[in-house]
């Protein structure tokens, strides 16, 4: 059983600042040199509904939030009802006694807040006061946090925070002391990691149309792009997004687009265009539950099979999915490098759970790959020159030589052709490139393997974090296999697992990773653990489900 984990949940209506209170708590734990995982849960609306932020912290590595809390702060009745089952045995529920009835500690949060302007918006601050009181820090620490986190209306926030702190200090009997860790980590969201990874790799322009959960990356570049040398553009729709990115790549600008499933549907023709003209564009696809509009602000891994075959026709496609936030940084950079090296589109496949959660990271930016193309070195330029490896060197305008990118089937110069032998020859060139890509991946780290003991657990994307935390929590000694690359699928790395008993854990209802493993690698899942309610796994529940399956398996 994992010790030393402390979990704080704050719930309320949209607009009450629960996410902010979660981030403030996460930063407070980070200052204590503890590791943190923070997850935000919110419906697709601006006011009302139920939002919550769950923050788990430990002095050792932590890969997931827990839904068993040491402290729950419920700002309304709904939050109380939803989260009362999430309070751990020795945990505490602090509720807003103006809005709800309950046991444990009631604090008149709303009547205290009413003394100030924008009383609805200020209520979230109470969460921090209660947390600081419970873990035994003083008002000085509280002031420090409020000043740092709540820039607007500092005076009101301070007064309100003090009032709640005083009530909480008096009412909370079972205080919890948090041990300090020995290293201060950087707290980073998945979206920030993706943005920074792309920037480190040399991204020049980011194009996106707003769509949860990829929007935070657009906001990241809008806010930080100038500093980092990256331009961000919000065109009229996803079709423009993808076509503009292809246009920008024609000039030599490193381009990336961001979207989710619905937007990626609109990008199909452009994705195929990128395959044909051999445009280096990186597509970030943040998954949410589908089909169609689905459940817009929640998490799922239902687009794995869709993302493996986007666009019509035959051309090399690259798909990879990061297993945690640190990996998101390096993998984004690596994919930007790969699209430039191989001049074909790639998908960075992730989920809302990674994009909008934050965790403690240790990153070494200099280890990020830099996007480096093969450049034309003189002589007559042929855009689609037949080469052994299928990669035709790039040249950018302005140039005395003709540079023609062509959506039609084309000859080496990029002029349209329908001649039988040329059509086949250009197919062959792209096939050679596909082979070169596979050979290149064979030299790369394409699969993460954690542990050595059987049985095996296969998983991918952010579910990897849930699985690792569940194994830690449940003291389960197993091997976790996480293919980072999903296309081309690294079967050469998975050969050793053929014929062995495997459990597949993924967040969709049909077992898409299990299908992929069976089809490509001949690995047959003995059991699948699926979750498809839009919520990430809770490590405690997941540990129990794994234990059940292992027992049955044995």
């Amino acid at each position, binding site marked *: 059983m994992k010790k030393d984990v402390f979990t704080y949940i704050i719930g309320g209506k949209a607009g009450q600042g629960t996410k902010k209170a979660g981030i403030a708590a996460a930063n407070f734990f980070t200052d204590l040199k503890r590791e943190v995982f923070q997850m935000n849960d919110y419906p697709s609306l601006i006011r009302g509904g139920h939002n919550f932020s769950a923050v788990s912290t430990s002095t050792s590595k932590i890969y997931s939030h827990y839904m068993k809390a040491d402290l729950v702060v419920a700002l309304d009745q709904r939050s109380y009802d939803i989260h009362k089952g999430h309070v751990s045995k020795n945990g505490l529920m602090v509720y807003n006694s103006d809005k709800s009835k309950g046991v444990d500690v009631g604090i008149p949060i709303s009547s205290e807040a009413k003394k100030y302007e924008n009383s609805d918006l200020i209520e979230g601050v109470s969460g921090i006061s209660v947390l600081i009181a419970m873990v035994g820090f003083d008002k000085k620490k509280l002031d420090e946090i409020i000043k740092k986190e709540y820039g607007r209306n500092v005076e009101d926030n301070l007064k309100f925070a003090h009032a709640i702190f005083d009530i909480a200090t008096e009412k909370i009997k079972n205080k919890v002391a948090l041990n300090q860790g020995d290293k201060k980590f*950087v707290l980073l969201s998945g979206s920030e990691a993706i943005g*920074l990874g792309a*920037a*480190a790799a*040399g991204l*020049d*322009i980011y*194009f996106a149309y707003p769509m949860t959960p990829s929007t935070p990356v657009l906001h990241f570049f809008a806010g*930080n792009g100038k*500093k*980092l*040398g990256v*331009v961000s*553009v919000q*065109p*009229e*729709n996803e*079709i*423009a997004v993808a*076509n*503009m*990115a*292809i*246009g*920008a*790549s*024609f*000039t*030599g*600008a490193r*381009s990336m687009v961001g979207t989710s499933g619905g937007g990626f549907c609109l990008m199909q*023709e*452009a994705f195929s*265009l990128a395959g044909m*003209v051999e445009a280096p564009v990186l597509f970030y696809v943040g998954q949410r539950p589908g089909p169609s509009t689905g459940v817009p602000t929640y998490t799922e891994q239902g687009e794995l099979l869709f993302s493996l075959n986007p666009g019509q026709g035959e051309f090399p496609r690259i798909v990879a999915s990061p297993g945690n936030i640190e990996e998101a940084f390096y993998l984004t950079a690596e994919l930007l490098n790969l699209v430039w090296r191989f001049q074909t589109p790639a998908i960075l496949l992730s989920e809302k759970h990674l994009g909008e959660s934050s965790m403690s990271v240790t*990153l070494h*930016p*200099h280890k*990020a790959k*830099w996007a480096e193309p093969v450049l034309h070195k003189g002589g007559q330029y042929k855009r689609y020159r037949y080469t052994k490896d299928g990669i035709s060197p790039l040249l*950018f*305008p*302005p*140039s*005395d*030589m*003709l*540079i*023609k*990118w*062509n*959506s*039609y089937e084309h000859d080496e*110069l*990029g*002029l*349209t052709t329908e001649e039988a032998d040329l059509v086949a020859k250009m197919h062959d060139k792209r096939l050679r490139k596909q082979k070169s890509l596979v050979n290149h991946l064979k030299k790369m780290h394409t699969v993460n393997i954690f542990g050595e003991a059987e049985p095996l657990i296969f998983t991918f994307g952010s579910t990897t974090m849930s699985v690792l935390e569940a194994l830690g929590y449940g003291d389960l000694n197993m091997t976790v296999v996480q293919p980072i690359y999903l296309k081309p699928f690294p079967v050469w790395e998975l050969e050793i697992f053929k014929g062995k008993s495997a459990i597949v854990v993924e967040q969709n209802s049909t077992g898409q990773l299990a299908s992929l493993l069976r089809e490509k690698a001949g690995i047959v899942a003995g059991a699948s653990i699926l979750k498809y309610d839009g919520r990430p796994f809770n490590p405690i529940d997941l540990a129990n489900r794994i234990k059940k399956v292992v027992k049955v398996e044995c």
Partner: protein
Amino acid sequence: MSADLSTDAEITWCPGCGNFGIFNAFKKVVKKLEDKGVDRNKLIISSGIGCHGKIVDYIGLSGLYSIHGRSMATVQGIKLGNPDLKVLAFAGDGDAYSEGIAHMIFAAKRNADITVIVHNNGTYALTTGQFSPTSRKGFKGPSLPEGNIEEPLNPLSLLLEAGASFVARGYAGKIDHLSDLIVEAVLHEGFSVIDVLQPSVVFNNTYKLYNEITEIIPKPAKSFEEAVKLAKEMRDRMAIGVFYKVNKPVFHQELMGNWNPIRDKLGRKERLKKVEEFFQQ
């Protein structure tokens, strides 16, 4: 790059097609622009899909032969990638006004510094003559054998309303006039569109009609309202020339200032330093 702007591609337009008028006018444009100091290596072209699209194959300039309706988005991306380039999108009427209408309207709205040349023949010629957004009411084609039941779009008044800063109409039968229009459009800083009346000899032969009703206007309209009025005169008299021209802030400069992603690109060391700085915040 060949001096006469030719390529090895075999020209497959129908003899007498209006596309030849635009093609020949454009070859003159490149030379006229060079006389005005515009390097042909910096002229980048794109096209959509349709008979017009083949112009990218036929003209010896660098560019991207794009897909249906997207050339206007493609060139906006090229312009953002390297604002030193002058970009032209060739488009058909189906391209510009049907599949790509959102890109057109938004390029006009944001005043993207691009030039769009629409080969407007009022039919989908490459796919054998179906009606297009600008086909007249009653126009017969294989998809509407009893005649078009929709009113045609008026692209010029639509684009004026969308905020286009340079709006013109040309005629493929008046090559010198058309080439002057294109030169002016390319030199205009901001969104410029030329709707070119282009007869399709097989599916919509309008030479006779246009020879009768087109009338060169010497100067742009005095006001926006007058330009809209002029754009709406379509039946008895059809003006060709520049309808409207105004100077407005240009999108890429509003977005990036003088930053050029290619010229000003930060090297790896600088980038890593900036990323490190972000972590230390």
